């Protein structure tokens, strides 16, 4: 395999770090928007960004910490939660960010009128 592809893909750390940094910036900026402008879009966007960050961190960490003993400890409901919650967080996070961005855009255009 090509060396560059190997660095980028095999451990995936570089690109994941890029994505996590972007999401973190998005969350911080949304919180600042919400505090400075009192626009509800910023709050919604920060909630969405935090949900996406949580799901992504879980997906990054889970292969290293989840093993049979933990699965045995949390039981069937916990196992189904580990399957169900990350996609739910990803979906809701994306919806929150898009909704928040829409709200902020509407707030801005009302402000500029």
């Amino acid at each position, binding site marked *: 395999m090509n060396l560059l592809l190997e660095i980028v*893909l095999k451990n995936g750390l570089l*690109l994941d770090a890029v994505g996590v940094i*972007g999401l973190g910036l998005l969350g911080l900026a949304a919180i600042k928007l919400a505090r400075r402008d009192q626009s509800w879009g910023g709050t919604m966007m920060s909630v969405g960004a935090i949900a996406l960050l949580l799901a992504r961190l879980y997906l990054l960490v889970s292969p290293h910490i989840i093993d049979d003993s933990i699965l045995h400890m949390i039981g069937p409901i916990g196992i189904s939660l580990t399957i169900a919650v990350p996609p739910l967080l990803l979906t809701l996070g994306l919806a929150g960010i*898009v909704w928040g961005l829409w709200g902020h855009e509407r707030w801005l*255009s009302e402000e500029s009128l």
Partner: protein
Amino acid sequence: MMQIPPLPLASIEAVRPVFLIIMGIFLMVIAWRLSKIATGWAARMIVAGALLLGFGYAIVMPLYEAGVIERYAPGRTHYHGTAATALAWQAVKLLSMNCGWLFFGLGVALHAKLLSAPAPRRATNPSTFVSNESAA
């Protein structure tokens, strides 16, 4: 040639891909409208990020969910297609999603003036400084 499995639109299995497509398109449209209000590099970064994310969410992710593109896993040896194709799509997905979030986050951060330095503090009472100097 890979057979595309039949996937009726808006059935329970197709809700998430349809949702992702709608969100991706909506994100691009809102970013375009926001770019008319925001100015300069913030607008450019937001639009660039939204285009990458829209490509990722509206095209690549639904293709993954529909099973048209095979998932790449490092230890996996058996693919229906070729391993190189799966690897290439994995690269496309990782690049578009992660760089999309980075650009979008940077754009919104610039828009919120998160990265700019705070306004320099004004000297509150310059007259004392002047009088001291004249006394010396």
